[in-house]
C-alpha cells in the first residue's frame, strides 16, 4: 500500500463509471433497434494486491468485469421456432387464400352457378327440342363450364408455378443468411478469443437466425469458441467450415427440388415460408388440381355418355358433347362447336320433338356420379368447403401463433428491451458515482498537497 493508491482507486472508479455511462448511452441509442438486447457493465470490486499481508488492507477499487447482454438463449430459440411456425401458417393462409379466391364462391360467378346454368340449359332444351335458341344456349352454357373449369385450373396451375419459382428465391435467401451467419461466426470467434464478449455481433447473429427460422425450421447450438452451429432438416447448414450451399434442381415430376451441394441429398424443410411453399405445392396439386380434374373428367364422361346415345335432328348419333380429358383441356367438342345441329336431344332417329336425351343430361344435376361418389355439384361444394376449411384452419393457426409470438416477443422485450426510465436511473447513479469519485480524488489530492507542500517546512 503506497501513498498514491487512493488516487488509483479514484481513477478506477472514474474509468468504471464512465464505461457504465457509455453502456447506458449505447442502450439509450438502441432504444428502437429491433432485436437489440440491453447491455449492462457489471462492476466488480478489486481485491487487495497482497492478500497475505499482515497489515489490514483495502481493496484496489473497482473495475468492469464484463459487459453483460440481457438475453435468454432459451427465449430466443422459442421465438425462432414459433416465429418460423407463424411464418409457415401465414404463408399457407395467404397461399390458400389466393387459391380460394380464384373460385369466386359463393356467388353468381362461381363454377357452381355456371354448372347449374348448364343443367338448366339442357332442361330448357328438353321441353323445347326444336328451338335453335335453346340449342345455342346449351352450347354457350357448355362453353361457359369449360372456360370456368379451365380458368380455375389455369389459375391454380399458375400459382403453383409461382410457388415453384419461389423455391429458388427461398433457397437463395437461405444461402445468403447462412453466409452472413458464417461470417459473423468468424468475427465472433476472433472477438471471443481476444476476450470480447461480442454482444452486438451476437445480437446481429440472433436476428439473422430469427430471419432464417422464418424461412425454415433450424436447430442451433453455440460452440465453446462462440461460433454457432446451424442445422436444417438434419443437415449442417452452418458449421465450422462455413455455410453449406443449397442447389435447385428440377425433379422427375417437373417441379423444383432443393438439394445440398455437398452430398446431393434432398433438403428436408419444415415450417417457415420454405416449408409452407413445399406444403402449398403438394396441397394445390393433390387437393385442388386433382379435385378439379376429377370433376371435369366426370362431367366430360357422363355428359358424353348420354349425349352419344342421342340422335341429332339429322339422325346422327355417337357425337361427343365435350372434348378433352380433364380440367386443363375440357372444351366443347369441335362437332358441336361448329354446328348447333350436332347437339343430340332425341332418344331415337327422326324424332325432332323428343327431348329425352336432353332431360337425361339435365338430370345429371341430381344424380350421383360413381367416379365422384356424389353429384357434380355436391362434389364441387365439398371441394370448395374443404378449401374454406383449410384456409380457416390456417387462419386460426396464424391467429394463435401470432398471439404466441407476440407474447414471446413481449417477454423478450421485457427481458432484453431498453426501458428509458431504468436507463435514466442508472445514468443518475453513474453520474453521481463519477462525481463522488472525482471528489475522492480531490480529497486525496488535498491530503497529498498537505503532505508534500505543507509539511517539513523546517528544511526550507
Amino acid at each position, binding site marked *: 500500500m503506497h501513498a498514491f493508491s487512493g488516487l488509483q482507486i479514484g481513477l478506477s472508479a472514474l474509468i468504471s463509471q464512465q464505461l457504465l455511462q457509455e453502456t447506458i448511452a449505447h442502450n439509450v441509442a438502441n432504444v428502437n433497434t429491433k432485436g437489440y438486447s440491453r447491455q449492462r457493465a457489471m462492476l466488480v470490486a478489486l481485491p487487495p494486491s497482497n492478500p497475505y499481508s499482515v497489515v489490514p488492507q483495502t481493496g484496489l477499487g473497482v473495475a468492469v468485469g464484463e459487459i453483460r447482454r440481457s438475453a435468454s438463449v432459451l427465449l430466443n430459440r422459442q421465438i425462432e421456432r414459433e416465429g418460423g411456425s407463424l411464418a409457415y401458417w401465414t404463408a399457407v393462409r395467404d397461399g390458400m387464400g389466393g387459391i380460394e379466391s380464384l373460385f369466386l364462391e359463393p356467388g353468381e360467378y362461381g363454377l357452381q352457378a355456371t354448372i347449374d346454368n348448364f343443367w*338448366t340449359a339442357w332442361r330448357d332444351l328438353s*321441353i323445347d327440342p*326444336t328451338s335453335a335458341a335453346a340449342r345455342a344456349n346449351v352450347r354457350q352454357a357448355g362453353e361457359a363450364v369449360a372456360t370456368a373449369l379451365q380458368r380455375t385450373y389455369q389459375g391454380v396451375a399458375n400459382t403453383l408455378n409461382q410457388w415453384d419459382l419461389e423455391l429458388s428465391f427461398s433457397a437463395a435467401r437461405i444461402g445468403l443468411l447462412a453466409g452472413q451467419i458464417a461470417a459473423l461466426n468468424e468475427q465472433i470467434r476472433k472477438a471471443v478469443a481476444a476476450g470480447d464478449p461480442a454482444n452486438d455481433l451476437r445480437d446481429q447473429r440472433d436476428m439473422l437466425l430469427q430471419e432464417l427460422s422464418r424461412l425454415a425450421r433450424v436447430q442451433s447450438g453455440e460452440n465453446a469458441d462462440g461460433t454457432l452451429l446451424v442445422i436444417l432438416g438434419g443437415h449442417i447448414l452452418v458449421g465450422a467450415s462455413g455455410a453449406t450451399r443449397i442447389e435447385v434442381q428440377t425433379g422427375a415430376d417437373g417441379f423444383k427440388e432443393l438439394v445440398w451441394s455437398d452430398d446431393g441429398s434432398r433438403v428436408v424443410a419444415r415450417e417457415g415460408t420454405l416449408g409452407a411453399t413445399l406444403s402449398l405445392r403438394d396441397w394445390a396439386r393433390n387437393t385442388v388440381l386433382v379435385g378439379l380434374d376429377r370433376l371435369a373428367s366426370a362431367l366430360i364422361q357422363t355428359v358424353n355418355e348420354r349425349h352419344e346415345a342421342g340422335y341429332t*335432328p339429322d339422325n346422327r348419333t355417337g357425337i361427343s358433347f365435350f372434348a378433352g380429358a380433364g380440367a386443363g383441356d375440357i372444351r366443347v367438342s369441335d362437332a358441336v362447336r361448329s354446328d348447333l345441329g350436332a347437339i343430340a336431344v332425341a332418344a331415337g332417329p327422326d324424332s325432332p320433338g323428343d327431348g329425352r336425351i336432353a332431360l337425361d343430361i339435365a338430370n345429371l344435376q341430381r344424380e350421383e356420379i360413381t367416379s365422384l361418389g356424389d353429384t357434380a355439384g*355436391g362434389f364441387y361444394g365439398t371441394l370448395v368447403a374443404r*378449401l374454406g376449411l383449410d384456409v380457416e384452419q390456417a387462419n386460426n393457426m396464424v391467429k394463435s401463433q401470432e398471439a404466441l409470438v407476440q407474447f414471446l416477443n413481449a417477454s423478450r422485450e421485457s427481458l*432484453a428491451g431498453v*426501458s428509458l426510465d431504468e436507463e435514466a*436511473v442508472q445514468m443518475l447513479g453513474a453520474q453521481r458515482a463519477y462525481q463522488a469519485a472525482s471528489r475522492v480524488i480531490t480529497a486525496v489530492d488535498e491530503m497529498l498537497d498537505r503532505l508534500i507542500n505543507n509539511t517539513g517546512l523546517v528544511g526550507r
Partner: protein
Amino acid sequence: MRISQRYIIDSAVDRLQRNQEGMDKLRAEIAAGRRILKPEDDPQGTHQALALRTHLSAARNFLQNVEYTLDWLQASDVALGSMAKVLTEARDEALKAANDTLSGQIRQSLAPVVRDLFAQAVGIGNTEHRGQRIFAGFKVQQPPFVANMDTLTFTYQGDSGSISHEVEPGSRTVINIPGSDPLFSTALTALKDLYDALQANDTAAIRAAIAELDSALDLTLQRQGEVGSRVKGVQGTRARLQKFELEVQSLLSRVESADVAEAALNLSSYEQGYQATLGALSRILPFTSLFDYMR
C-alpha cells in the same frame, strides 16, 4: 412485468392492427350484404349455400318451364275442343240428313259441308304450337296428317312418340296426344263415312256414321278431360314450386346474408375500441420518461 419502450410500440401497433382488421371485415360484410364472402368465413355454411343455390337455380328453371308445359297442354285442350265442335257439327248435319223425308238431292248437297268439316278436322290434327305440331308424336316439324280431299282419305306421317316434360324433380307429365291415338282415325273415318253415305244417299249408312261420330266425340271428350286433369296437376306443381323457391330463398338468405344491424353494431364497437386505442396512444407515444424531468 418490465415494460420496455419497444414493447409499448409493438403492442400499440398490434392493437391498432387488430382493430383495423376487424373493422375491415365488417365493412366488407355490410357492403356486400353477405355474411359469407369467402368459403373460409364459414366452410359449413358455404357448403350449404352452394347446395341451396343449386336447388334455387333448379326451382327457378322448373318454374319457368312449367309455364311452357301449361302452354302446350292448353294448346292441346283448345285443339281438342275444336275437334269436339267439328264432330258435333257433323253429327247435327248427319241427324238432319238421316231424316227419311229429305230428298236425296238435299242429302247430297250436305256432303260439301261434311267435306269442309273433314278438312277442319285434318287442320286440327296438324295444329301448330310455337312451330311444333302438337299431334305428331316426336315428328313435330312436319304436318302429321296428309289428306286426299277427293277421296277424303288420310295418311298419318307422325309417330306414336309420347313427349313428357319433367315438371319437378323426378316427376314427368305426358303433354302430347300423338296422332296415332284412335281418336283421330275414328273421327276422320267417321267424317269420311258420313261423306260417302251422303254422296250415296244411304240413310242406313248415315245412321251408322252417326254412331261412329258419337264414339269419336266420346274419345275426344275423354282426351280433353285427360288434358284438363294434367293441366290441374301441373298447376298444382307450379304452386308447390313457387313455395319451394321461397323456402330455398329464405334458407339461403339465412345461411348467407349478413345481419346488417348486428354487423353495424359490431363495427361501431370496433370503432370505439380503435378510437380509444388511438387516444391512449396519443398520450403515451411522446414517451414521457424520467429523462424529461432531469436537469
